[in-house]
Every structure is written in C-alpha cells, then in structure tokens.
C-alpha cells in the first residue's frame, strides 16, 4: 500500500467515525404530520374515480378555497405561525360539536397530543415561552379529559372505567415523549416546563380517579388540584421504559 493510499484510508476511517447529525424530535413529528396529511390527500385524490364527480368536487373545492384554504392551512400551524389563532377557532368549533362523553373525551385527548407536538416543535425552535404555553395546554386538555371520566362515574361506571384506561395509556405515552424531550434539552426553563407538565399529567389521573361530588354537581377538581386520589384506580408508573 502506497503512503498516499494509507493516508486516504486513515481519512476515510476518520470520516466513518463522524457522528451523524440527527433531526430533533419536534422536526420528526412535524415532518410526519405533514407527510401524513399529504399521503391522506394523495389517497383521497386517487379514490375519486368518476370524471364528472371529480369536476363537481373541483368546483366545490374552488368555491370554498378562500375560506377553506386558510382553515386547512391552519390545521398544521404551530404556535409561532400567523395562522395559529385560526387553528384555535377551528378546535373550539370541533369541541362544540362533540356531544357524547366519548366524543368529548376523544376530542380532549386529540388536542392533548396536538399540544404536545406543538411543544416539541417549539422547543426544537428554541421558543421556550411558546413551548411552555403548549405544555400548559396539554395539561388543560388532559384535565378536561379526566373531568369527563369523573363525571361518568355515577351515570355509566363501565364507560368511565374504559375512558380512564384510555387516559392512563395516553398519559403514559405522553410521559415517555416528555421524558425523551427532557433528556435532550439544556435550557433550564424548558426543563422546568417539561417537569411541571409531567407532574400535572399525573395529577390528571388522580382527578379521573376521584368520585363525582355527592351533590351531582360539577367535579370540584381543577388542574391545579394537587390532592391525592382515593386510591380506587391505579396510577400508572410513568417512568419511561427506555
């Protein structure tokens, strides 16, 4: 082997040892949301078979383009986007249309996941203030879901148990994501916000486990209630498995 080849071999080995630069978790989640939306759109486009039907749909689409375009664009918007307030309006409309306890519960869990995705994206962009707001929103939604569970305890215990089980699973998944995020940030404010979010998520479980007040009124627990539950429901161990 000539000296030149030996040198280049050493350089090649050094290149192999360069650590890969990985995307932030927020970027990966944001990317998947965008890819998923595009895949869904692509699939629905392929399913349209009849040309006349396509034409009608195109005309309808064109008619609602101005309004609908902005609304649709807001669906994936993040807290630092100009379209974000519109997203909140759309979410509120969705909430108003959720009538059954199951629908309300699913609505709150869906929004909780949305808030978590937003928080991850904001941390990736070093917007700790907006990340903290999103995490607060995450906890609010989990607490709202917990209140739905609590309210169903007397009227439909079976449904309450089912919803509580889903809440436990959702919070455990969120906690894993938050733990992963926490391990990657160095900003003290971000770490504090994530720690608080994890604690409040655990409190939401306690809220769900509490019985409804005896007068049949609204559940008394708020998101800031730090009182323990009655022990009727097992609080999951939220420590990440990895």
């Amino acid at each position, binding site marked *: 082997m000539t*000296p*030149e080849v030996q*040198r*280049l071999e*050493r*350089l*090649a080995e*050094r*290149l*192999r*040892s*360069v*650590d*890969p*630069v*990985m*995307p*932030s978790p927020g*970027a*990966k989640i*944001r*990317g*998947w949301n*965008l*890819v*998923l939306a*595009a*895949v*869904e*759109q*692509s*699939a629905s486009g*392929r*399913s349209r078979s009849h040309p006349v039907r396509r034409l009608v749909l195109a005309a309808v689409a064109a008619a609602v383009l101005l309004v609908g375009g902005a609304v649709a664009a807001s669906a994936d918007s993040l807290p630092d986007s100009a379209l974000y307030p519109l997203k909140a309006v759309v979410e509120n409309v969705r909430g108003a249309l959720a009538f059954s306890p199951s629908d309300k519960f699913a609505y709150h869990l869906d929004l909780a996941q949305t808030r978590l995705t937003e928080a991850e994206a904001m941390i990736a962009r070093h917007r700790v203030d907006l990340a903290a707001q999103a995490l607060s929103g995450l906890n609010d939604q989990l607490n709202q879901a917990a209140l739905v569970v609590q309210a169903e305890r007397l009227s439909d215990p079976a449904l309450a148990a089912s919803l509580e089980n889903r809440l436990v699973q959702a919070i455990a998944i969120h906690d894993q994501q938050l733990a992963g995020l926490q391990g990657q940030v160095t900003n003290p404010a971000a770490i504090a916000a994530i720690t608080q979010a994890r604690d409040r998520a655990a409190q939401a479980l306690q809220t769900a486990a509490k019985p409804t007040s005896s007068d049949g009124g609204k559940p008394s627990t708020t998101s800031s209630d730090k009182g323990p539950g009655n022990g009727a429901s097992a609080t999951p161990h939220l420590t990440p498995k990895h």
Partner: protein
Amino acid sequence: MQPLGKAASDDDRPLIERVRRGDQDAARILYERYFDRIYNYVYARLGRAEDAEDLAIDTMTRSLTRLDLFRDQGVAFSSWVYRIAHNATIDHYRRQGKAILVPLESATIPVSADPSELAVDQLSNDDLREALRALTDEQQQVLILRFFQDLTAAQAARIMGKSVGAVQALQHRALGSLERVLHGRTNN
C-alpha cells in the same frame, strides 16, 4: 458512531404496495426508516438544521405521495429516495443562488501543500463537515453516501447512476481533494 437505523432493503417492496393502497401504517414505517438518513444526508450537504429539516420533510413527502412515478425495475426505493433528496438539495442551492458544481481546480485549495503532515485524528467533526462542503457536488455526494451513510460502493453507485468502478475512482479523488482542503485550512 451512532447507527442511522435500518438501511434500505428489499423489505421496502411490500410496504410500497401497502402505501399505494393508502395504508398509513406502512407509510409510517417507511418514513421512520428513511427520515433520519435523509436528514443526515441533506444536513451534510447544507450544514443548516432548518434547511435540512425542510428538505428532508419535502423529500419524504414526495417519496411517499408520488409512488405512481416509482417503478421498481432495477432501481431500489432507497435509491429513488436519495435521488429525490439530491435533486431537492440542488434545487435549494439554485433558489439560494449558490453555485454548486465548483470545479476543484478553480477552488482556493493550496495544492502545493504537503498533505502528509495532516493530523487526521485531531480534526474535529465540524472541520470535516465544513471541508467536505468545499468539494464538488459529486465528490460530496460520494463521501457522504459511503462514509456518513455507511452505504456500499454498489449502493452509492445505484443512487448516483454510475458504475461501481466509477464510484470507487470518484471516492479516491474525493478523499484526495478533501485531504488538500483540510490541509489548506490547517495551514491558514
């Protein structure tokens, strides 16, 4: 070096068929399989996390929504994805108004320097990444695919549309160029 995840394989074919039928789970598997690699590839080319994120997302979106354009005849899905990423990178450079195909002889590289003095082990990762971006488009591509992405010469050849021999020759020239760039930087 951390692993970049599962490399491209024949396993992609059934997943591609499922995605064509609208299966989102299959799309998710392919996304997970390639996103980190494509991000890493684009980042090595551009050096900016924000741009790398956008282009990696763009690449995966195009890859998974334009499967009607992909024909599994001699070209693996992985090669197709890398080509989309490469084209997206070229387009990005064009939009930014940057020249990309800089001939080596016109670059400011001190070819008279003695490359044998280069202390390879003392170079930082950032030094290497930055120096790599001073190479020509093809030289960057071959080094990234072979050493950052840990692909074989045959895999790199399929992605670049070249013969294995051509890739090996290009790789040799690229390493020599990189050595000269690094030597020039350490002397400056």
